[in-house]
């Protein structure tokens, strides 16, 4: 059988990736000193990594099942509170000037945050989202309602006040590179974010489960026709995405050194900006979008603080003018 002419080679789309150094370099002339620029850049990358952790599950959930989950923020909040509770309960380990002692508090806190957020995700999918599959308007209404209910429950369980959360001793403070001060916690956030991205990339690109998820994002009906239960797959992705949001939540709480019931809701606008910039359903796009938003927020936060959120909306508008379906659009059938 004739195969026709040769296919064009599939090339990695480098242009959106080039936006990250482009934004960083574009900001350089406006920042008064190089060390300040380095500090802001690391802060922006760290913020971007945490946003990526919070947004990755949301983009997959939307890509797989077309679910508009406005309640994703509660997984961030609950994760932040669960982690905070564990960290505050292990104050001596937190305050010890030993990495091992600090880790003995951080690891259980992260696991608690992910477990509770994942469980809440499972419960939410069964009780709130399952009855409204296929109806975007109802999804928006019930998930917004769910978000308000969980926020109030947080007030009941943890109280209405902001809870201060000091960072563990060994990841507090900065180290100096050249003349630039780099916060230790931000470096940790970058490393954790990279590890999460690498793990997601490996799962999505090197496993059969990942193959199914990628196929399901493109055409869930065809995946079902091949004999796979997409609903089961979706529940798994929803729980994993919620757990990741919980991880992002506890990291964000440590970043801010405090936690409040609105922590998740406050992030939702930024998360949706990231999803739209990256291309709905694209994990790679979500990663690049989160880094862009993190950098933009830090540069504008330094140069013109009142424009911080507005600058990200402007970034989104510019990206959509360039690529109307986001940086890495997912082909949906």
């Amino acid at each position, binding site marked *: 059988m004739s195969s026709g002419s040769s296919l064009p080679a599939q090339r990695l789309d480098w242009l959106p990736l080039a936006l990250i150094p482009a934004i960083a370099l574009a900001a350089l002339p406006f920042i008064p000193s190089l060390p300040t620029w380095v500090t802001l850049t690391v802060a922006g990358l760290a913020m971007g990594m945490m946003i990526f952790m919070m947004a990755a599950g949301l983009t997959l959930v939307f890509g797989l099942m077309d679910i508009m989950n406005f309640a994703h923020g509660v997984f961030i909040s609950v994760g932040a509170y669960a982690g905070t509770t564990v960290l505050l309960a292990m104050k001596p380990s937190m305050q010890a000037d030993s990495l091992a002692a600090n880790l003995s508090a951080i690891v259980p806190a992260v696991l608690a945050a992910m477990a509770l957020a994942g469980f809440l995700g499972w419960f939410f999918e069964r009780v709130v989202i399952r009855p409204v599959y296929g109806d975007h308007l109802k999804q928006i209404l019930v998930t917004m309602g769910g978000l308000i209910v969980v926020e109030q429950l947080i007030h009941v369980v943890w109280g209405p006040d902001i809870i201060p959360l000091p960072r563990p001793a060994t990841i507090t403070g900065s180290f100096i590179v050249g003349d630039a001060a780099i916060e230790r916690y931000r470096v940790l956030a970058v490393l954790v974010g990279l590890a999460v991205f690498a793990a997601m990339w490996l799962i999505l690109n090197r496993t059969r489960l990942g193959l199914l998820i990628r196929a399901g994002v493109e*055409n869930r009906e065809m995946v079902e026709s091949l004999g796979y239960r997409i609903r089961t797959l979706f529940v798994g992705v929803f729980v994993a995405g919620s757990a990741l949001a919980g991880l992002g939540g506890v990291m964000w709480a440590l970043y801010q050194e405090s936690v409040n019931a609105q922590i998740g809701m406050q992030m939702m606008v930024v998360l949706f900006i990231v999803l739209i910039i990256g291309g709905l359903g694209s994990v790679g796009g979500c990663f690049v979008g989160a880094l862009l938003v993190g950098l933009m927020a830090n540069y504008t936060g330094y140069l013109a603080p009142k424009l911080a959120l507005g600058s990200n909306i402007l970034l989104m508008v510019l990206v959509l003018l360039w690529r109307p379906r986001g940086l890495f659009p997912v082909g949906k059938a």
Partner: protein
Amino acid sequence: MAEALLSLAGVNTHIGQYHILQGVDFEVPRAGLTMLLGRNGAGKTTTLRTVMGLWQASAGAIRYDGAEITRRTTPERARLGIAYVPENMGIFAGLTVRENVLLAARSGPPEDRRLEWIFRLFPALQKFWHAHAGNLSGGQKQMLAIARAIVEPRRLVLVDEPTKGLAPSIIANMIEAFRELKRTETSLLVVEQNFHFARSVGDTVAVMDSGRIVHAGRMADLAADDALQQKLLGLSLQAHQ
């Protein structure tokens, strides 16, 4: 006479407020290729999707291999041995040809002999094994869609308009491929608008109109009867040579 592999009895399907299938009755034998013909909007695609469970029958019964499957989910039907090639081919464009095929092989990586057989049917797939499926031509995508349906032995393969938009040379290759498929244990139910293709590969035929089966019989009998073609399809097969 042996029981049919697939039988539909009084099947009705509603899509929203529209009543598409209005009591479909027909059978697919345990061997050979059954063509499902009819004018646009007659309900052919809806019939395939209802058999696959992508749209639920609102009334009637679908029996497959001796068991009723009317209320079974799509994945359950697929696991019983029914494969489906939709009209839009359902290719995962972001995945490679290899990944598309591997995904369809539910029980693990396909045997080398099976893959070699598929490559003999569709050599282009071997050539572009590691290429992204989204970059394939229309004909190559159709080959991939069919390869995915037969990467593991299936009892029944449903194919919706396999020659749609294809060049004549590719259609000739498709005819050869379907003839080869007919030599296996697989039964085929194919929706088609191309009467030359239908006559070339069809063993039995069912013709639909307005959501009902209006004729069922041997393909050879329909192909030989210009008047019947005119009555059922509006045009004779001769007009489509």
